[in-house]
């Protein structure tokens, strides 16, 4: 086994409420210090994969029924979120979930829950260093912050936990393109400077592949493609289905048929 392996998902299937099967054999590997991005259309099972890793399936009545998830060589599938977060896996939920009635700084302090009792002043400074705009909002209720600030807040909150593996679920959701670029730059910097391994789930495949080292593509609860991010960006199919830059504008009707067939081969 390679020693730079951080997390290994082995052929897991996830079932909600004992009946709805969402993941049908997903395998992926995350290496230390990398940014791995997971792409796919809506309902492909990306978020479920993240939740399977972070243990948040349980409160939603979901379960890993087959396969295993190994983190630093230990099986963590179906463990409780309390255990998993204490191992250093922190998920940033989709759709920005701040604590509305807590101030920005109190929100950040909740991030210390996994290592309660340890000093956190330095970490606050670190977070404010990455997310400058938060400084001015320090003592304001999070419920009154803007979308961009909130995204920074929830990411900063996760950083407070000193994650070894940070699971980011759609950080670009509903943000202006300019802000998206900024957020992604920060993600990249965090990865480089804090040596945090990051798993990034995104709709904005273009941006995600720009900063990622490795990429996976999901469809219908399965991984259908995996490659280094650079190669993935060059792949004509990915280009067409996820990056929205088709090879040729001409011969549209013919291309549609071909695209349909190509897509069919995938699924």
């Amino acid at each position: 086994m390679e020693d730079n392996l951080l997390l290994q998902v082995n052929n897991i299937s996830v079932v909600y409420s004992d009946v709805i099967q969402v993941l049908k054999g997903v395998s992926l590997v995350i290496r230390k210090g990398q940014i791995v991005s997971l792409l796919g259309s809506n309902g492909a099972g990306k978020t479920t994969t993240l939740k399977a890793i972070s243990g948040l399936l349980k409160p939603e009545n979901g379960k890993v029924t087959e396969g295993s998830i190994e983190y630093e060589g230990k099986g963590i599938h179906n463990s409780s979120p309390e255990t998993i977060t204490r191992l250093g896996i922190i998920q940033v939920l989709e759709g920005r979930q701040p604590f509305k009635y807590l101030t920005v700084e109190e929100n950040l302090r909740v991030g210390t829950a996994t290592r309660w009792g340890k000093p956190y002043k330095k970490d606050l400074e670190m977070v404010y260093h990455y997310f400058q705009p938060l400084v001015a909002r320090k003592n304001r209720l999070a419920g009154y912050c803007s979308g961009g600030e909130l995204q920074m807040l929830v990411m900063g909150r996760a950083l407070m936990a000193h994650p070894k593996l940070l699971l980011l679920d759609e950080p670009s959701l509903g943000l202006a393109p300019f802000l998206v670029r900024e957020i992604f730059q920060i993600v990249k910097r965090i990865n480089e400077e804090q040596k945090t391994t990051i798993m990034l789930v995104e709709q904005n495949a273009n941006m995600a592949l720009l900063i990622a080292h490795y990429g996976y593509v999901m469809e219908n609860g399965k991984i259908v493609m995996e490659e280094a991010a650079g190669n993935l960006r060059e792949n004509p199919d990915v280009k067409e289905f996820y990056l929205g830059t088709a090879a040729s504008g001409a011969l549209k009707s013919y291309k549609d048929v071909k695209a349909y067939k190509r897509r069919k081969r995938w699924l």
Partner: protein
Amino acid sequence: MEFFLQLLIQGLSVGFLYALAALGFVMIFKSSSVLNFAHGELLAIGAFIFLAFSVWLKLPIYLSFLLTLVGTFAMGFVIERLFLRPLIGEALIEVIMLTVGLAAMFKGLLLVIFGGNLFNYPDFLPAGLTIKWGAINIPPVYVASFIIGIIFLSIFGFFFKYSSQGIYMRSVADNQPAALSLGVHVRRVFAMSWAIAALVCAISGIILGIMNGINVHDISVLGLKVFPVVILGGLESIGGAIIGGLIIGILETFTGGYVSTSLKEVIPYIVLVFILLVKPYGLFGLVEIERV
């Protein structure tokens, strides 16, 4: 003038009683957003456990006080584990109705075990606590309750505002999934908040017992009086609970003194309706933030 002062003192002391009763309620609400209709019964349980230890088993006062605290603390855990935990994430009405059901259960049990009579504790507070100030004479119970109230207020105020555990508790009430994702031990927070609340209730219940004697019916009525108090003060605010309690207490005694004794019982609720119409989140409550 003397009558006025007398009413004022009486009102303040009744108000303090309400404030004490409201503290545990605010605790539970703040950390788990549960509106506890079984609150009066929790007070009563604390008071009766103390009664059982101190009067029936004739244990020394301090030992029985300690045992009561331990007992109610454990009971809070058990209540949460048995009844509240299965409902984590369920709709509001079900949780409310569950506490209503619990209230009926506890009240029934207390009545079966202790009956509906009025019980009194032996007089054990030091007489030195009496404060004399001209014509005004404040008995030791009130002084003691005042001191305990202030201690509670400062401990819990500090706890929720500055301590990490307090902030985790508030985060759970605010957004459960997010708290889970950050590794906050949500189940432990719930259990702790019920345990602490039961303990606070026990202390308040004992003080109430010293002031008025204990009777299951009276205390459960008092449990409902908590609602006007916390609505006036704001559901999440501990300071608000104290001020709300004092205002309601004074209002009640003055209505009783100057207007009519039967109106006294409902005046808090009439005030409650007006407060809700004018200032739905109370004096110090959090204004609901809704992002659509």
